[in-house]
């Protein structure tokens, strides 16, 4: 009997173990696949072509720089939009809002998270694009900023829910202590609660960045997809092209094994590395934070 129990135990813990390791296995497989398909691009396409400023793949111009900078610029602006709204909403929900308001807000934000990005893209084309053109008096409303606003909307729910969780884990005694020594509500939030939840808030921001970085559909529909180098001061107000939109719109057409195909996978590697760098940066910051708090406690 106890032998049977042990077998059952082994099976279940085995299954759990496999599930636990599966994400590592998947990641490794994805990485291997990306490298296998994408690295040959480095040998097939001369480096001075690959890192040039012209992207027109059907004639052999494989310059990925405009796409890379386009992604960086759109993501950066998207996070500048999502950060104040996201953290602000999280602080309001966790620290200020009465319980019934929170009860309404939370599900609404979860619904916002569930809206498919292609639907946001449609709204973008029909509402945002004409609005941006007339509001900023631009040649066209298909701009990087339009895409960044869409991405900001997509990233906000992620930032809110994770930042709010982080704020909720701050012990109430912190707030009570701050209020007891005469701090105002705002001083408590800015000086005590937010710094105490810093790690979690940072994770929220980084996940928001990741969400914005990888988003494809909404961006493809509203940024105009012109592979221009975004080097001017006002580039965000002009059409630009991101890496994700390029992969999505061109992958269907390319012949497997062609230079174009491999360059698209190479772009995939670049995206992968970019999100890896962001994750490493996030975890190294949170590690430092933990070490410091451990020092203080000891």
């Amino acid at each position: 009997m106890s032998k049977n129990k042990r077998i059952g135990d082994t099976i279940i813990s085995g299954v759990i173990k496999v599930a636990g390791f599966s994400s590592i296995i998947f990641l490794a497989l994805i990485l291997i696949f990306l490298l296998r398909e994408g690295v040959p691009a480095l040998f097939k396409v001369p480096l001075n072509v690959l890192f040039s400023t012209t992207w027109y793949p059907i004639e052999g111009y494989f310059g990925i720089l405009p796409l890379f900078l386009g992604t960086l610029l759109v993501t950066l602006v998207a996070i500048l939009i999502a950060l104040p709204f996201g953290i602000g909403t999280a602080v309001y929900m966790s620290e200020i809002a009465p319980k019934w308001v929170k009860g309404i807000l939370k599900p609404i934000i979860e619904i916002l998270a569930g809206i498919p990005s292609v639907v946001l893209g449609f709204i973008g084309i029909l509402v945002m694009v004409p609005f941006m053109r007339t509001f900023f008096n631009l040649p066209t409303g298909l701009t990087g900023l339009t895409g960044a606003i869409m991405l900001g909307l997509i990233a906000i729910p992620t930032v809110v829910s994770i930042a709010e969780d982080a704020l909720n884990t701050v012990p109430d005694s912190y707030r009570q202590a701050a209020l007891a020594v005469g701090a105002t509500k705002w001083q408590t939030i800015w000086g005590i609660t937010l710094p105490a939840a810093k790690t979690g808030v940072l994770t929220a921001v980084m996940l928001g960045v990741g969400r914005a970085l990888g988003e494809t559909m909404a961006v493809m529909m509203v940024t105009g997809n012109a592979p221009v180098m975004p080097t001017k001061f006002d580039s965000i107000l002009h059409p630009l092209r991101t890496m994700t939109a390029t992969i999505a719109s061109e992958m269907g057409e390319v012949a497997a094994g062609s230079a174009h195909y491999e360059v698209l996978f190479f772009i995939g590697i670049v995206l992968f590395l970019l999100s890896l760098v962001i994750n490493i940066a996030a975890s190294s910051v949170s590690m430092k934070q933990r070490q410091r708090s451990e020092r203080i406690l000891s």
Partner: protein
Amino acid sequence: MTENQHARSFPPLFSNIITLMKKWFLLILPVILLLAGCGKSQQVSASGQTSSNAYIQNMGSDTIVNLALAWAEKYQQIKPDVRISVTGGGSGVGITSLINKTIDIANASRQIKPEELQKAKAEGLNPYETVIARDAIAVIVNPSNPIQQLTLEQVSGIYRGLYNNWKELGGEDRPIVRLSRETNSGTHVYFLESVVRLGNSKDKTIFSSDTCLLPSSEGIIAEVRDNPNAIGYDGLGYVTPEVKVIAISSLKSPDIFVLPSAATVSDGSYVISRDLYMYTPDTPKGAVKDYLDWIVSPEAQKIVKDLGFVPIANP
């Protein structure tokens, strides 16, 4: 006592494992069914060569997709035992799928490229070309744009980036916003070769880099409808009354400006026009052959005209 407890706790644990396994099986079941389904549909598609209960998979050019759908619907009314599925995606996607042997007919708004032909030959295929209709590409602007006509060279100049303000072409003082389909579109390739490069195959000019590449015909129509700065191009069948079609003159007679229509394409006076194709992996046989024969018949070519394309045979 402890023995008893064990005895009691054993059956629930065991049944737990069974439930767990059931759950796993339920999770995996759809995947198995899906895989089985895929295999099956391929078999049916392969046997689409026989004439009864045939299943024809038709995929490719977004320009042709509406026409192909109209044909498929009509043909299935005439021959209820034939099933035809039509998908868009672009000419490149269609031909790639043909080479990958996942479809029976590829729609293309351009001819197969030499490198694609080579790939097909390497797969043991011998792609067979059928001209199914002709199409005019309309150059479109916003209705509020006073420009009525442009020479072919002026259109080329706009897309090369030589003209950046409508003023330079006799219009208002407004910036020009260039719109184009994505590079996987046959329309894009045709426009590049015949308009931007003016048919000169040695010319290696490409679109001005600030040309917006939009993923769909509808995207181009929407932007041209809303934006008085925009210029775009699209198959005549897609043009809606909310945008303005520009009259174009040819290189030979730059003074005669012609609007696109079935008549001006047929007599050759409107120059931005091209043939539309269907490709089969090999010389068509069975149901696919019957279908293609029907498509070039006067009855099917009438649908071509109804959808704003130009029929091949003189109807």
